[in-house]
């Protein structure tokens, strides 16, 4: 049963669209193709799709912009990228936007079908009605592939567990047990050893963070300037404690041991933006910027 899923292929090369269409249609998928991201946005405003294959480098509107649009307007649509340049950077950008997988150009029919099948089954699982219990969130295949790539890149280097964990946390956003196990296996270590490292260093987190991560500096200079009051205000406003995520997953709150910006104390950092000379009154306006 594949025909109830609608797939859209976006690429500026007609040959890619034609080959995708013929390969996928032969397997019974419902496929449409478009030559630009702009057309894709217009089409998607009219009708929803379940899965979108998109090129990254396209004239006018590029793939990343399209993915951003989809994430905002059609969050249920799964995205797979087709790219001739599977470089770390572009993939990283796309991964951060939550793509399911990628197809390297040029591709064979088997590769395309493989990726499609994986993406479709992943979408189906997501669409399946949630169990009353909390459903275990599975990582998209693209993330797992990236994790494996990082592991193989570092495997031969001694003492690479910390860099690998740092990179994987960048990819996934946090380090759930399944990722730790995968890394342990890849680096030929025990899961206990990996967990020991994850739990030792404050940089690593086993909980997913919110869209925006708020970090409050608890260094001496900030303490003397009563950062405590700022922290309490944020806790009150967001109704979360340190180490928690708001219900809408917008914000997570952490404390750090001195950001080394003591001249600006008290200091708060949201994502990469630093806010100095904080006081409780400034909190609501700053949070509004991210809402």
């Amino acid at each position: 049963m594949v025909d109830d899923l609608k797939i859209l292929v976006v690429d500026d090369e007609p040959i890619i669209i034609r080959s995708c269409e013929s390969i996928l249609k032969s397997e019974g998928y419902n496929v449409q193709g478009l030559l630009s991201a702009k057309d894709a946005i217009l089409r998607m405003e009219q009708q929803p799709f379940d899965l979108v294959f998109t090129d990254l480098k396209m004239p006018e509107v590029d793939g990343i912009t399209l993915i951003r649009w989809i994430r905002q307007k059609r969050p249920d649509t799964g995205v797979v990228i087709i790219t001739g340049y599977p470089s770390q950077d572009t993939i990283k950008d796309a991964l951060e936007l939550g793509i399911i997988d990628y197809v390297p150009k040029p591709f064979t029919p088997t590769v395309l079908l493989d990726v499609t099948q994986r993406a479709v089954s992943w979408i189906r699982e997501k669409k399946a009605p949630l169990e009353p219990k909390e459903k275990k969130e599975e990582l998209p295949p693209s993330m797992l592939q990236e994790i494996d790539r990082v592991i193989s890149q570092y495997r031969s280097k001694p003492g690479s567990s910390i860099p690998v964990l740092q990179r994987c946390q960048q990819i996934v956003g946090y380090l759930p047990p399944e990722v730790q196990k995968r890394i342990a296996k890849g680096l030929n270590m025990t899961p206990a050893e990996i967990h020991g490292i994850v739990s030792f260093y404050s940089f690593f987190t086993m909980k997913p963070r919110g869209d925006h991560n708020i970090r409050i500096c608890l260094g001496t200079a900030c303490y003397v300037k009563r950062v405590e009051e700022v922290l309490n205000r944020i806790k009150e406003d967001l109704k979360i404690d340190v180490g928690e995520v708001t219900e809408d997953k917008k914000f997570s709150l952490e404390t750090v041991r001195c950001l080394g910006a003591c001249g600006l104390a008290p200091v708060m950092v949201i994502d990469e933006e630093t806010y100095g000379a904080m006081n409780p009154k400034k909190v609501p306006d700053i949070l509004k910027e991210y809402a």
Partner: protein
Amino acid sequence: MEKVRTNLLMCAGTGCVASGTPKVRAALQEELEKRGLADEIKIVLTGCNGFCAEGPVMLVYPEGIFYQKMTVDEMPKLVEEHFLKGRPYEKLLYKEPEKKHAIPAMNEIPFFKHQVLRVLRNKGMIDPDSLEEYIARDGYMAAAKALTEMTPADIIKVVKDSGLRGRGGAGFPTGLKWEFASKSVADQKYMLCNGDEGDPGAFMDRSVMEADPHSVIEGMIIGARAIGSSKGVIYVRAEYPLAVKRLQKAINDCHEKGLLGEDIFGSGFAFDLEIYLGAGAFVCGEETALMRSIEGKRGMPRPRPPFPAHKGLWDKPSVLNNVETLAQISPIILHGAEWYRTLGTEKSAGTKVFALTGDIKNVGLVEVPMGIPLKTIIYDIGGGMKNKKKKFKSVQMGGPSGGCIPMGLIEIPVTYEDVVKTGAIMGSGGMVVMDEDTCMVSTAKFFLEFTADESCGKCTPCRIGTRVMLDMLTDICEGKGKDGDIEILEDFSRDVIATSLCGLGQTAPNPVLSTIRYFRDEYESHIKDHWCKAGICRNLCSFHINEELCKACGACLRACPQKAIVGEKKVPHRIIQELCIQCRTCYDTCKFGSIEIGPAAVKEKKEPAMK
């Protein structure tokens, strides 16, 4: 190279960037273009200038005019006045608080006047991303000299003679450390740099790495040559992304230009350098723990000996130097040990960088000759208290391993020996100034919270000792202190110091001991009178309005979140104790100092004891 009339050295350190450098820079650039000056006046983004409190700051070079607190709106005026009419734009110049007259030249501003820049020699002067600009200021001359004209023994002798001591905290003589490692025989040795600046309140290493990354690399090349190492690692905190970026760029440039890699300067010496990102653990500032961390394990210290000079990273002889120490190396090699000793004292030679923060006017980084009186740093360079009405209470030095120095000792010269005598330590150079509104018991508690949390848990005295002490301090701050608690705390401190494995535990009780030593009366009034005189511990204070001082202005009345203050115009206000939650808002709001802090016990009585 393009020729320009004037360089505008704009600070792009973390502090100034957060204060608005990017926007101001864009506005300034636009204005320069509009006036047709963009070809002859060039904006350069530099590393941290050090005067963080006045940011965004800019130095006009070569005139040496210093602008501060720049805003987007002022840029058209600034360009017109300074660059068209040729006179400094007074509104953005630094002004002496009392005298009100503007000081245009950077070198005459008190904050800069007393400083001697050796470590920070390039701060705010060069583009940190440019190898060429570093070389233009004698960069890599020392490395060339060390590699082509000196033997390892010569290098070690100069560094030893200079009297340079490790700037990371303990103050171990650098030359001696190098000598030990150079004498170890092994197929591989490691030259390591500790950029895991963990002391809260210290940010000089960050500043050096961000403003002058090459100075660290050059120090490492020279050190590596001295000990015979071909591999180096810079261990940097993950919290310092900009420092990592700048160091990486610097390393890449060096590789490209042959300053790192094989056969440096045709001397046959090879040295490779990489960055290792720390993952956030204070204990990794300890050398054996840091090495474990690079090996990809939990960063826990191990007993010494064997010392890292014999068995360090991967069990090979290793030297670990602090960022600031390494940045001192190249001037020493270039100008000699005698030159280095012209500043400082017999046992504490040269200069030291301090991070001046807290309740002080001029917050920022300062580099001074050692032996300078503490008072000069706080009052002349630091400009005294931020809030002139408040009295100086104490300055905390050495972070969680250090102690609080009280008013009575403020004349001491700042050297390793003199600071240790007070119960504090030089540490990495954090100086947090506290005014009379600080509760010293809470401050001690703050540091113990830190060490108890960061204790790695390997040795019992540190893991359990810090926790027990923290619980006692928490009790005292909540009004549950008992007679004899102070003595138990002192006993406990001595035990933890004597029996802990590494520097973290051995110094963790210092903040407690030093505050008990100088502010014992505060501990006693917390325990016996249930009175936190600074009004910080909520359970141990009450607020009262002194009717003689109250101007009945209504400011506190409006600010009180509990509506616990009553009064009307021309009638002195009064706080209803039953409603008061001791939030201090009225105390901070009152401009006349009419709010007084009394003991908690008063609250139970119907009428406040104050008149």
